[in-house]
C-alpha cells in the first residue's frame, strides 16, 4: 500500500440526503435490518449447528463446477408458488450441482424470487426427515418402511372395524403433482370415505365456489403473462411482491406501458409501494369498498351496458344492495372516504380492459364466498370479462394447489368437480373400470339425520373439511354426522401451523388414536403435542425427486423432469400411496389400468387414465406426449399470448391450459383466457357456462346475442347432450363407437369425448352458452352482503350487519356463528389481528425454514404494530411481546413497530412454527431434522370462524391484545 495523494476533486453537489423525507419518513425502520440484529443470537445457535460439520461436507460434495460434458440438464418447475417458474437443474453423477435461469421459459424468462433462486438446496436436504420414524415412549425411533406400513395399516383397519371408514382422515396436499393428487383421491375413494381434503380449503375454496357459481369455472381466468395486455390492474387482499414475486415482472412492465395499478389492502404492502393508487380499508370490509366503487360506476353510467344485457343475469338484484352502499355508509364501515372510492372506481372505468387480482385477503373470511362473488360482479359491471387484459386473475398459492383442487383432493368433490352424486360416482367407477356397487359398499351406510344429516349417504355427503379436523376429533360424537369422531389423522404434506386455534389443535393431536405424518420434513405435526406413542413419520420426497405434471395458477400444465433420485430413505408420494393400497388390499383396483414398476405406478399411465375422465374441465386433451412436447419447447411460446409460434406445438397455448377439450387426438390448443368470445372455441375461445338451468323466475339465463366467433348457434344455448345433438341433427357426426358411449349421456359424462368434439366442430362450447349469474340462489346469501366478522372491533356494526345463525350438519359438523358473535370482545382485545406472507417462506414454512439460504434472511417471528398501538401498550421496537387472541391462544414474538399497518391493526406472518405459547419445541424434532429457524405460529392466536359455503377458516380478521413480555 502506498498512500500517494493523487488528486483533489471539488465536490459540487450537496451530499444526497437519501430517503429523508420532509416528514422524517427516512427514519422508518427496515424489517430486515431489524430482524438481522434481533436474530443474531438465534442465527448464532443455528450457525454453530449448521457449520460443524454439515455444510463443509456438503459443499465438498457439490463443489464442482456445473459445466462439462458430464453435466446433464433437467427441466423442472419451482415448487414454491403457483407462478410456475421454469428451472434448469444441472446434475452430475446424480448430484444437483447447479441451477441455471430458464430464460426461454414463457412464465418467468429466467427470473426467480428468493425461494425459486434457492431451490437447489433441495438437493442437499440437510434438515429433511431421513427415515421412517415411530414414537416409542415419547422418543423417536427409526423403523423400516415395511414395519411402518404394517403397523399403521393394522391400526387403521382396527379403527375402521370399530368406527367405520370415516374415522380415518386422509389429509392430502397441494405439493402433490397432478398424478399423485389424482391417485390420492382415488385411494380415499377406494378406502370408502370422503374425509379427504387439502390446503385449497383454507386457501381459495371460497374463490372456487364463488367464481364457479358465477360463470362456470372456479379458476384464474387469464394468466400472469396476459397482464401485459391490461390497462388497469386492481389488486385486493393480495401482496404479489412477496407471494408471487415473478408475477410482478408482468405487473411492472404493464405499468411501464401505461397501465394503472390500484392496490386495496389494510396494509401498505410491498406491492402497494408500486401502486398508482393505494386504498387502505379495514380488514373484512371488502364488500363495502367493492360495492362502494360499483355505486360510483352505476351512478356515473360507466357500466358496460351491452355486456350486461347480453351476458349477465341478476345484476339488478345486486344493484339493490349496491344502492345501500352510499359513500357515507362505505366510509362508516370500511374507512374509505368518498373521494378515494370515486377515484378508484374512475381509475378502473377509465382504463379498460382492467384485470382484478385477489388472494387470501379476499378469501379467508366467514363471508369469503360473498367477497369473491362481489369481485366478479365488479368485473362484469365493467365488461372486463372474457377479454385479453381483463379477467379475474386469482393468484393461487402453492405450486400445485390448482391441480390438487382440479383433481378433487377435496371432501366435497371427485376429480374434475363432478361432485359426489351417484351419477358422478358411476362416471368415475366406469373410468376406473370398477363395479359401482362394490365400491359403494365400502362406505358407511347410515345417514344420521338426528344429528343434522341431510339424509343422503356418506358416499354422497361432503366429508369433514381440513379446516375443521380439530372439531372432527374433539366435537361431541352425538353431534357429528358420521358414526364416530375422527380417530386417525394422516397429514400427507400439510402444515398444521397454517390452521387456527392452536391450543385446541394441541388437544386434538393428543386425543387421536393414530397420527401419521407423510412429508419430506417432520413438520409441526411431529412436535406440537405431548403424544407418547402411535405416532409415525414417513419420509416423502420433494417433487425434484420424482416427475410428473403440475398446474400453474393460469391452468397451464407443466411437465417436470426428475432431477435427482430420492434422498435418504424417502419415497415419492405415489409409491407411498401404492404401499398403503397394497396393505389395504385395494392396490389392484387402484392400478387396474396403470402399469406398476416394483411399487411405483407409472406416472404416464395415470395421466392417460384421468384424460379419460376429466371432461368437465378439459383435462382430457393433455396426453403425456403433448405435455412433454411443450416442456421441450419452452422457447417457442410467445410470452404475452402464450401461443407457440412455430415448432412442434405451433398454435397451441403453453401447457395446454384447461379446458383443453376432447381427446388428445382432437388436438385442442387449450384455453388461455376463459370466456373470450373473440376466438373460436376450437382455438381457445369460450363463453360463460350454462350450469344453473336455462331459466329462473321467468328470466332467460342463456346468453343473448353473444357467442364465440364461428359458432353455428348464434345465441345462447343449453349444455350439449346426446338429446340435444339429435335435436340439432348433429347426432350422425358421431362415429359408431362414439355413439355407443354417448347414447343418453350429457356432454361431461360421455366417455368417448364425441359430444364435445361435435359441439366444437360446430363452433359451440360443449357446456352451453349462458349468462353469468350474479345471484347464487343456492348460497346462504344469494346476493353478496356485508357481515361483520365473528370477532370484530366494530361491535356497533353488528346489529346492522350480523353474522349467520348457528348451523348443524354443515360439512358434518355443528358450526357456530351468532353464538360467537353474541359476545363483544373488543374491550379486552382492542386490536384487529390479520396475517399474511413473507417472500422468503412458503405456507407453514417447514420446507423453506429448513433451507439455509432462505432461513438466514428471516430469523424471527414478529408482529407489525403501529407506533400508536405500541406506545399505548408500552412496547418498543424489537422488544419481546405477548400477543393474545380472544380464545386464549398466546404467542411470544418480537415487536416490529411500523407504519405499514394502521393504528388498530396488528399483522403477523404465518410461516413460523416450532414454538408454542412461549415454549421452544426444538428438542421434540427427530435429531437433525429441526428447521434452522423456528418461531411461534401466528395461528395459535387466531380464532374460530368458517365460511358459510366452504368452511374456509377466518384468518384475516380476528382480535388480539399485546403486552410486553
Amino acid at each position: 500500500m502506498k498512500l500517494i495523494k493523487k488528486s483533489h476533486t471539488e465536490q459540487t453537489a450537496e451530499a444526497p440526503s437519501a430517503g429523508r423525507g420532509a416528514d422524517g419518513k427516512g427514519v422508518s425502520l427496515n424489517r430486515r435490518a431489524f430482524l438481522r440484529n434481533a436474530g443474531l443470537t438465534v442465527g448464532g445457535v443455528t450457525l454453530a449447528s449448521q457449520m460443524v460439520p454439515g455444510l463443509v461436507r456438503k459443499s465438498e460434495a457439490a463443489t464442482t463446477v456445473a459445466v462439462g460434458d458430464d453435466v446433464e440438464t433437467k427441466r423442472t418447475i419451482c415448487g414454491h408458488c403457483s407462478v410456475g417458474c421454469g428451472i434448469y437443474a444441472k446434475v452430475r453423477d446424480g448430484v444437483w450441482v447447479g441451477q441455471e435461469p430458464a430464460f426461454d421459459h414463457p412464465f418467468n424468462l429466467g427470473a426467480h424470487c428468493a425461494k425459486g433462486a434457492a431451490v437447489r438446496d433441495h438437493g442437499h436436504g440437510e434438515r429433511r426427515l431421513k427415515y421412517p420414524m415411530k414414537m416409542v415412549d415419547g422418543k423417536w425411533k427409526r423403523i423400516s418402511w415395511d414395519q411402518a406400513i404394517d403397523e399403521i395399516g393394522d391400526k387403521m383397519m382396527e379403527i375402521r372395524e370399530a368406527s367405520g371408514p370415516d374415522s380415518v382422515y386422509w389429509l392430502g396436499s397441494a405439493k402433490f403433482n397432478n398424478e399423485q393428487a389424482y391417485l390420492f383421491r382415488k385411494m380415499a375413494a377406494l378406502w370408502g370415505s370422503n374425509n379427504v381434503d387439502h390446503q385449497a380449503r383454507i386457501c381459495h375454496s371460497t374463490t372456487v365456489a364463488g367464481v364457479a357459481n358465477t360463470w362456470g369455472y372456479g379458476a384464474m381466468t387469464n394468466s400472469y403473462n396476459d397482464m401485459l395486455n391490461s390497462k388497469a390492474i386492481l389488486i385486493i387482499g393480495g401482496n404479489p411482491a412477496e407471494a408471487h414475486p415473478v408475477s410482478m415482472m408482468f405487473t411492472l412492465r404493464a405499468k411501464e406501458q401505461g397501465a394503472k395499478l390500484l392496490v386495496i389492502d389494510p396494509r401498505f404492502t410491498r406491492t402497494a409501494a408500486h401502486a398508482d393508487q393505494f386504498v387502505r380499508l379495514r380488514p373484512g370490509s371488502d364488500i363495502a369498498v367493492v360495492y362502494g366503487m360499483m355505486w360510483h360506476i352505476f351512478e356515473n353510467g360507466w357500466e358496460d351496458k351491452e355486456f350486461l344485457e347480453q351476458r349477465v343475469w341478476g345484476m339488478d338484484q345486486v344493484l339493490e344492495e349496491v344502492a345501500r352502499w352510499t359513500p357515507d355508509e362505505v366510509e362508516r364501515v370500511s374507512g374509505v372516504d368518498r373521494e378515494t372510492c370515486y377515484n378508484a372506481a374512475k381509475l378502473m372505468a377509465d382504463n379498460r380492459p382492467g384485470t382484478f387480482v385477489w388472494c387470501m385477503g379476499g378469501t379467508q373470511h366467514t363471508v369469503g364466498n360473498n367477497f369473491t362473488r362481489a369481485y366478479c360482479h365488479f368485473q362484469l359491471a365493467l365488461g372486463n370479462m372474457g377479454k385479453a387484459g381483463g379477467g379475474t386473475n386469482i393468484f393461487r398459492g402453492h405450486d400445485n394447489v390448482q391441480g390438487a383442487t382440479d383433481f378433487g383432493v377435496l371432501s366435497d368433490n371427485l376429480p374434475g368437480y363432478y361432485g359426489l352424486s351417484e351419477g358422478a360416482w358411476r362416471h368415475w367407477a366406469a373410468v376406473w373400470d370398477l363395479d359401482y356397487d362394490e365400491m359403494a359398499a365400502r362406505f358407511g351406510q347410515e345417514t344420521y339425520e338426528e344429528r343434522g344429516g341431510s339424509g343422503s349417504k356418506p358416499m354422497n355427503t361432503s366429508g369433514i373439511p381440513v379446516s375443521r379436523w380439530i372439531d372432527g376429533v374433539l366435537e361431541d360424537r352425538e353431534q357429528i354426522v358420521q358414526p364416530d369422531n375422527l380417530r386417525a389423522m394422516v397429514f400427507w404434506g400439510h402444515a398444521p401451523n397454517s390452521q387456527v386455534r392452536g391450543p385446541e389443535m394441541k388437544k386434538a393431536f393428543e386425543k387421536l388414536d393414530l397420527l401419521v405424518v407423510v412429508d419430506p420434513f417432520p413438520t409441526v405435526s411431529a412436535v406440537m403435542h405431548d403424544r407418547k406413542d402411535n405416532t409415525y413419520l414417513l419420509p416423502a420426497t420433494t417433487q425434484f425427486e420424482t416427475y410428473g405434471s403440475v398446474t400453474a395458477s393460469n391452468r397451464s400444465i407443466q411437465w417436470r423432469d426428475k432431477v435427482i433420485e430420492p434422498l435418504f430413505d424417502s419415497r415419492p408420494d405415489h409409491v407411498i400411496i401404492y404401499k398403503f393400497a397394497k396393505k389395504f388390499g385395494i392396490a389392484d383396483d387402484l392400478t387396474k389400468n396403470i402399469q406398476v414398476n416394483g411399487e411405483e405406478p407409472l406416472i404416464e399411465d395415470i395421466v392417460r387414465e384421468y384424460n379419460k375422465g376429466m371432461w368437465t374441465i378439459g383435462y382430457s386433451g393433455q396426453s403425456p406426449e403433448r405435455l412433454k412436447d411443450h416442456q421441450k419447447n419452452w422457447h417457442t411460446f410467445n410470452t404475452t399470448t402464450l401461443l407457440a409460434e412455430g415448432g412442434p406445438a405451433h398454435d397451441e397455448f403453453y401447457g395446454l391450459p384447461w379446458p383443453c377439450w376432447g381427446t388428445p387426438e382432437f388436438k385442442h390448443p387449450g384455453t388461455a383466457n376463459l370466456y373470450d368470445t373473440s376466438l373460436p372455441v376450437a382455438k381457445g375461445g369460450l363463453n360463460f357456462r350454462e350450469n344453473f338451468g336455462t331459466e329462473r323466475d321467468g328470466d332467460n339465463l342463456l346468453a343473448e346475442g353473444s357467442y364465440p366467433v364461428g359458432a353455428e348457434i348464434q345465441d345462447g344455448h343449453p349444455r350439449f347432450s346426446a338429446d340435444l345433438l339429435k335435436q340439432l341433427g348433429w347426432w350422425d357426426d358421431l362415429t359408431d363407437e362414439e355413439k355407443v358411449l354417448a347414447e343418453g349421456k350429457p356432454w361431461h359424462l360421455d366417455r368417448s369425448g364425441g359430444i364435445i368434439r361435435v359441439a366444437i366442430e360446430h363452433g359451440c362450447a360443449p357446456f352451453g352458452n349462458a349468462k353469468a349469474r350474479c345471484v347464487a340462489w343456492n348460497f346462504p346469501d344469494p346476493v353478496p352482503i356485508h357481515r361483520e366478522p365473528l370477532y370484530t372491533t366494530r361491535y356497533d356494526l353488528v346489529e346492522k350487519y350480523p353474522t349467520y345463525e348457528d348451523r348443524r350438519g354443515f360439512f358434518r359438523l355443528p358450526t357456530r356463528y351468532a353464538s360467537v358473535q353474541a359476545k363483544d370482545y373488543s374491550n379486552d382485545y382492542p386490536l384487529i389481528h390479520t396475517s399474511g406472507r413473507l417472500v422468503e417462506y412458503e405456507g407453514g414454512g417447514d420446507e423453506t425454514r429448513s433451507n439455509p439460504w432462505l432461513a438466514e434472511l428471516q430469523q424471527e417471528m414478529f408482529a407489525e404494530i403501529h407506533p400508536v398501538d405500541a406506545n399505548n401498550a408500552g412496547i418498543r421496537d424489537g422488544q419481546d411481546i405477548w400477543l393474545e387472541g380472544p380464545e386464549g391462544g398466546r404467542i411470544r414474538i418480537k415487536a416490529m413497530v411500523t407504519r405499514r399497518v394502521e393504528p388498530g391493526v396488528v399483522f403477523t406472518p404465518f410461516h413460523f412454527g416450532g414454538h408454542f405459547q412461549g415454549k421452544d419445541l426444538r428438542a421434540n424434532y427427530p435429531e437433525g431434522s429441526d428447521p434452522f429457524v423456528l418461531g411461534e405460529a401466528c395461528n395459535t392466536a387466531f380464532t374460530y370462524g368458517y365460511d358459510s359455503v366452504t368452511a374456509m377458516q377466518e384468518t384475516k380478521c380476528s382480535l388480539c391484545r399485546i403486552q410486553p413480555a
Partner: protein
Amino acid sequence: MAKMKFLCDAERCIECNGCVTACKNANEVPWGVNRRRVVTLNDGVPGEKSISVACMHCTDAPCAAVCPVDCFYTTADGVVLHDKDLCIGCGYCFYACPFGAPQYPSPQQRVFAVRGKMDKCTFCAGGPEEVGSKAEFDKYGANRLAEGKLPACAEMCATKALLAGDGDMLADIYRKRVMRRAGRPETWGWDKAYGAGV
C-alpha cells in the same frame, strides 16, 4: 472492451431477495456472509423503494488502494477481484469500501478454505485460480463469466430490476425504460412526499 457494472432499477425492485439467494446458490456462500443485500428506504411508508447492492466493481477501487498486502486486481472487463491466499483478513478494505461490500466469515467457517479472509462479490468471475477448478470454486465461488454467463443475481432477478453487464448496454436498457415510464412516478406516494416531478 466491456466495462462490467451493476445497475438496480429501483422502480422495479420489489425487495424479494431473489438476487441474494441466487448468489448464495451459485457461489455456495455460507451462512453469515452476504455478498449481496437488498436495502430498503422508507420501509412501510409512502415512497418506499429498494435497491440491491453488492460490490460495485469501482474503476478506482478504494479497497485496492488501502490493501496493505496489495491483493486486489482488476480484470480487463473492470471486475475487481482479490487473491485470498494473500489476503490477511485485516478488514481495512471494509473501512474503505463505500458500500460495505467486503465480508469476513467467522473463523469456524472454513468453507471458503481460508479462515477469516475477506470475501466479496466477484461479479461471478471466480478468482486467481485455474478457471473452473475446484480450488477456484472453494475459495471464490462460480466463474460464470468464463462460462459465457453473467452474474447469477442479475440473471435471476424477479423483475429484471437488477442488471449486470457492460455499462453501456445497461444504460441503453435503462434509458428505454425511463422513456417508457415518461416521467410518471412509479412509487406510491413519491409525488406526495417529494413533490411531483421529483
